[in-house]
């Protein structure tokens, strides 16, 4: 069903398309708003979410739309740039409200999420963040989250490394200007201490691509493994430079590591690294999505793209469950749905807004992603 992109469905999937009525036999359009960085340093995350969501919207519309009660609705995605800043997120949000947004897929970054959660509450809009991982984001009952929280990731990884793999001494490298990285690191450190392990050194960085100093420092400790709760673009520099410095310690990462294989020049540098992710592009279930995505955008989808894609399907489920487009009904429908997505099968949501899905440990073996035992 994915072959032959008709121009009609193109307009549907494009953001900001102002064609009021969509193709097919739908009576109405349901507007999904999206907010994330499309320009600036964090652009890759927002663009991925947007593109993943576009694929989902296109799929759904081409398959006839969403059945909401006795109506069939077409989806429309309007995605606004916030440059990962709080104040721009607020204007982006208001722009979307002007544009008739029904539900919000966003924001992509934590700071932006925090800036709009109360506005969304005031408007009683269902908000689903694909990737905002700070715990406070879901404090309001209209907000749900698709990714894992920072604490959850940190704790899960600590348990995996200490309880399952019996490491005692672990070095950490994290980005202290980033709330995600810091959040995971802090939970990790607390859990490691609780489980009797030691953090030999926690090396921070703010920006830039040079990690030699931090890695040299780590080399000087008796760490048995390195935990790096950072995004794949930074991680690629870390593993490459570690190989240069002949560091052979195993690497462990957070879900931000997804996509790393396409970012390193030498796959050997990441061999044996393990990270936590709900999704990896090598999975069989993701094959269709990956093919469509590569076809449309010429790159391999990462976890953000998968989050964006799943987010749209979560909304579809909620619409079908609620049988109306009323926000209140959609919000209460959220806790009743189960969605099979790329980032997990049978994803459901607790009343606190958190996703119930299994975390997967992914290990890089022979230059490929593989499910770790």
């Amino acid at each position: 069903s994915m072959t032959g992109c008709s121009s009609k469905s193109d307009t549907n999937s494009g953001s900001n398309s102002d064609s009021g009525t969509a193709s097919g036999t739908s009576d109405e359009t349901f507007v999904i708003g999206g907010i994330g960085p499309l320009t600036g340093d964090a652009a890759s995350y927002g663009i991925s979410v947007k593109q993943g969501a576009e694929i989902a919207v296109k799929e759904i519309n081409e398959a006839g739309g969403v059945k909401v009660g006795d109506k069939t609705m077409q989806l429309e995605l309007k995605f606004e740039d916030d440059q990962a800043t709080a104040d721009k997120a607020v204007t982006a949000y208001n722009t979307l409200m002007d544009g008739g947004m029904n539900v919000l897929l966003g924001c992509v970054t934590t700071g932006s999420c925090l800036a709009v959660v109360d506005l969304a509450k005031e408007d009683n809009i269902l908000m689903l963040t694909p990737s905002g991982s700070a715990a406070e984001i879901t404090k309001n009952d209209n907000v749900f989250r698709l990714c894992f929280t920072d604490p959850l990731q940190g704790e899960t990884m600590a348990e995996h490394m200490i309880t399952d793999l019996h490491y005692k001494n672990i070095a950490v490298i994290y980005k202290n200007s980033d709330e995600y990285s810091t959040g995971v690191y802090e939970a990790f450190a607390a859990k490691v201490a609780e489980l009797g392990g030691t953090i030999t050194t926690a090396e921070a960085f703010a920006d830039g691509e040079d990690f030699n100093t931090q890695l040299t420092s780590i080399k000087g400790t008796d760490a048995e493994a390195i935990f790096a709760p950072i995004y794949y673009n930074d991680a690629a520099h870390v593993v490459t430079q570690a190989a240069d410095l002949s560091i052979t310690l195993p690497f462990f990462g957070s879900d931000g590591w997804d996509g790393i294989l396409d970012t390193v020049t030498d796959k050997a540098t990441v061999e044996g690294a393990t990270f936590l992710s709900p999704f990896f592009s090598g999975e069989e279930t993701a094959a269709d999505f990956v093919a469509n995505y590569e076809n449309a955008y010429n790159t391999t989808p990462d976890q953000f793209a998968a989050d964006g894609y799943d987010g749209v399907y979560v909304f579809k489920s909620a619409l079908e469950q609620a049988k109306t487009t009323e926000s209140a009904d959609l919000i209460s429908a959220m806790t009743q749905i189960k969605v099979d997505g790329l980032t997990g099968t049978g994803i459901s949501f607790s009343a606190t807004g958190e996703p119930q899905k299994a975390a997967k440990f992914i290990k890089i073996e022979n230059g490929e992603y593989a499910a770790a035992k």
Partner: protein
Amino acid sequence: MKNRQTDKQLIKNIAITIIIFIIVESLLYGGLLSRQFRSLLIPVCINVILAVSLNLTTGFLGELTLGHAGFMSVGAYTGALVTLNMNLPMAIEFPVALFAGGIAAAIFGVIIGVPVLRLRGDYLAIVTLAFGEIIKSIINSMKITNGAMGLSGIELHANYKHFAYVFALTVITIFAIKNMVYSRQGRAVCAIRDNYIAAEAVGISVSRFKVMAFVVAAFFAGIAGVIYSHNVGTLKPTTFDYNKSIEILVIVVLGGMGSIRGSVIAAIILTVLPELLRSADEFRMLLYAIVLIVMMIFNSSQIKQRILSSEILSRLRRVKKEA
């Protein structure tokens, strides 16, 4: 004779201010303003305050400053911590926050004043940039500011619902800086810009007035920071990096160095422009860049001179005079 003229000017300015206020308020309460534009009201005011205050150091004192966002962040965090910890009615805690934010930023203005005395030109520019980054880095690693996670849940004492207050603060800033520029102290500052050797030679203490300009500018940047934190409700150290400082500098230069009215107009244009370009989608930043370049070139080009001195304009002026 001159006094009467300035009085007239003053009345005219006040009248314009009141008219603008009434128009905005009625648009706001009449529901005529889209939500997008509603959410721009406060950022516009913030940028006006920032630009007008930066104009004091960059336009009037003539020193390139790349760390204005640093002062803003000091004010933003101080103000936010005040309201987060006070839990008193807005009428009490918000003024306290404003005052505390302004003063805290002004103190940093004094600290930065020390290198200002020894350095000039690009060396000073780098040092102000460095100060901004140092402030950011320290805020990022402090417990009380919650590090990289930043602060959230700051009460929205300065969002669009409180436009009247923010507008008043903006107007006060504009008048204060304008009056300062036309005072004895402001003249000293301008004299230093035009020729510091001659300024010294007529008995102006160059160091004193350089520091004074930095302190006053920092104070108002701090106020802008407090408004920022109480408009958005969240704070992150990275918001106030040197890109923010440059954004303000762009406004000042585009508006014309040493022109307060220019700063106000440019702040409005450059805040609204990126929003108007939203429909351009992924070409937005590209267009913004092009518009910026074209505006800068136009601004200092012969074409503008020609338009300004053109027949049409002078004829218009003549007509106006005759009427």
